[in-house]
């Protein structure tokens, strides 16, 4: 039993306690404590002071460090944000016939509890080296996050949650199939069913089974990552989930699933035949995802769905990068960091707008610059960041991915990549400018004049924004900006190690 269990078990414990606490305040405190402790443990892991006893179950290699720190950071931000986002509500929902447990009455209790479980599941899927264990983790994230999506308990959220549950379960079942095939591919003498364990016996792995395994895993986990055309659950879930949850979903969860694919890819990278197949598939899915997301971001009527599709696009960008190999791998990993920071803050800002205007329709909102100064400025900054405008980090990564594409003479792919990026840019620009610019809004979604009192309006005509609502986005966006200008040495080293693991070059 290594100390690593702690980082998984602690959230579970706090989660259970949360479920059974009545007071909203204590739950908030628990949430904060959990996230802080998790961060502390993460720091230890990244320092290398916590390492797995045996390499049979867990690993703390560079990949884990990157994704774990992203998750932990995002979770902290999300929990900070959740403090203001969740208004304490007295009435839970009606008791369900099967499980008449008291905590189910309280939406917030369930929500916060599941947040903890969600964290635990994600952490498990990140730190686990054993493929089976990792699969359990990923499946667990689905189970833990379904109640988060269903938090609002209305028809739409129910529909979203159901779709999410079915689609992701199916996908992950396929991934399990893939893992069985992977097990089929390994010779008997392999002691650890982990990436490193298999890499040791690269020579003895069986190509054909490995290929099948990779296809199954890619399609299966790809469903969870949101590669088109398996992405269909993503916009529904992200738009219906409460904003802290959507921030975590697109910022952290997708990365976990991506990591699960990368682990298998790590094995495939050892064998040229499979490696080429894997790269082809990565490029294929990357471009398709970017195309689909571009098409749906253009004319998108719902700004949270727009953000969701943008996640699809960025997952596509990363996949494209992994497929290209070389420097692009490092770039893609770096892109994952930047994307998580930016996208989560965008979701939080979307939450602010939603809670102020009570509508997700783009055309119902304009003149934000005049009503929500801080949020709207960050909103525009986030737009620039997510579309890869310098000096944000995303620019560097997207450009070096393009560079790699051109270097390896994939002119066509490079051109398509740029084309889709432009498509996304135009669509997003339209949406963001429609919302931020223009005259101050006077009518609400129903067309009645807005009662700015209920939006607790200030004297100068701006809506009151609680500091906790925008402190996290400010920090995250600032971080993304800073990463664009200079990557701190330790982060750079970790990224380079990770890309070396995946057979890529250093950034």
């Amino acid at each position: 039993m290594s100390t690593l269990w702690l980082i998984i078990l602690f959230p579970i414990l706090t989660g259970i306690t949360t479920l059974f606490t009545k007071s909203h305040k204590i739950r908030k405190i628990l949430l904060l404590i959990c996230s802080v402790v998790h961060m502390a443990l993460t720091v230890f892991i990244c320092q290398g002071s916590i390492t797995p006893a045996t390499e049979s179950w867990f690993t703390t290699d560079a990949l884990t460090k990157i994704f774990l720190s992203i998750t932990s950071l995002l979770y902290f931000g999300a929990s900070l944000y959740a403090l203001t986002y969740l208004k304490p509500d007295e009435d839970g929902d009606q008791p369900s016939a099967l499980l008449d447990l008291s905590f189910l009455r309280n939406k917030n209790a369930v929500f916060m509890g599941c947040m903890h479980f969600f964290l635990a599941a994600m952490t498990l899927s990140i730190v686990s080296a054993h493929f089976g264990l990792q699969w359990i983790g990923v499946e667990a994230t689905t189970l833990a996050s379904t109640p988060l999506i269903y938090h609002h308990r209305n028809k739409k959220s129910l529909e979203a949650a159901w779709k999410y549950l079915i689609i992701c379960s199916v996908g992950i079942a396929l991934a399990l199939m893939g893992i069985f095939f992977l097990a089929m591919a390994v010779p008997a003498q392999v002691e650890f069913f982990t990436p490193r364990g298999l890499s040791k016996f690269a020579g003895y792995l069986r190509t054909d089974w490995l290929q099948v395994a990779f296809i199954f895993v890619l399609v299966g986990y790809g469903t969870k990552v949101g590669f088109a055309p398996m992405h269909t659950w993503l916009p529904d879930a992200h738009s219906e989930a409460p904003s802290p949850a959507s921030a975590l979903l697109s910022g952290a969860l997708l990365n976990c699933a991506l990591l699960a694919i990368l682990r298998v890819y790590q094995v495939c990278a050892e064998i040229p035949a499979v490696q080429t197949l894997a790269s082809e598939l990565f490029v294929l899915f990357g471009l398709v995802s970017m195309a689909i997301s571009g098409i749906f971001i253009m004319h998108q009527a719902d700004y949270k769905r727009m953000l969701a599709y943008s996640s699809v696009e960025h997952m596509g960008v990363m996949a494209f990068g992994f497929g290209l190999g070389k420097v692009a791998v490092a770039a893609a990993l770096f892109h994952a960091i930047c994307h998580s920071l930016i996208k989560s803050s965008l979701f939080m800002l979307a939450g602010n707008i939603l809670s102020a205007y009570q509508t997700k329709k783009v055309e119902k909102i304009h003149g934000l610059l005049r009503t929500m100064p801080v949020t709207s400025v960050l909103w525009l900054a986030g737009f620039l960041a997510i579309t890869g405008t310098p000096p944000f980090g995303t620019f560097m990564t997207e450009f070096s991915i393009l560079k790699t594409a051109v270097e390896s003479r994939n002119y066509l792919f490079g051109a398509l990549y740029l084309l889709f990026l432009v498509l996304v840019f135009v669509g997003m620009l339209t949406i963001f400018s429609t919302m931020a610019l223009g005259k101050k809004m006077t009518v609400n979604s129903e067309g009645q004049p807005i009662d700015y009192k209920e939006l607790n309006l200030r004297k100068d005509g701006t809506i009151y924004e609680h500091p906790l609502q925008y402190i996290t986005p400010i920090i995250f966006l600032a971080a993304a900006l800073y990463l664009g200008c200079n990557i701190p040495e330790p982060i750079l080293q970790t990224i380079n190690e990770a890309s070396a693991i995946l057979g890529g070059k250093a950034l």
Partner: protein
Amino acid sequence: MNSIATLLALSCLFLLGSSRLMLAINMIAFQGFLIGILPLVSGHGFSFEVIILAATGIIMKSIALPQMLKKALEKSGTKREVEPYISFGASILSGIILLFISGWIASRLTQDETIVSSSLIAGFFLLFTGLFTIITRKKALTQALGFLVLENGVYTAGLSLGSEFSFMVELGILLDVFVGIFLMGIMLFHIDKEFDHIDTDRFDALSDLELLNGNILNLDQDTDEEEGAE
């Protein structure tokens, strides 16, 4: 071994053919039982862990889950699957086609193996049947069932490939599946409560069919008319 595989296949065909949901659930329970005993007969010997796994598998898949689903069924008051996207006769036909496909794929995959394990074919067939059910049936319940079949398929294939993990992992996998179906069950209640039907084909409130108003690429504008400002 082979007999179990055949039984599994038959149960699938039954599942495809039958419109009555209760029967379908019973079929699933039967499948659960078959898959439960599969590791025992697959000749890996009778270790303690194997027995435990088989027991939990049987309890979960052929007793607990079917019971819950039956509850849900009774509560929703629906008896049978009404017009699926593909009629039952056609479903059976396509089931047979799927059987051929899975046989083909399995043989192609294992062409350099000594034997084409029948349970691998069964696994593929279950998997495809599960997918097929989810795709063609309308009731949310049936989709849950389909998912269960799919899971069974994966499990069977896993067994047939003889790739067994350590005890803990296997247990974890089982647990996950269980919780998954369990959640689906709970949500079935909620769906029933919210929509007072469990037809997922009416689940299309969330779509991207509506466009953002106004011409996105608005190039045409009578600029001479409107005054800009300094």
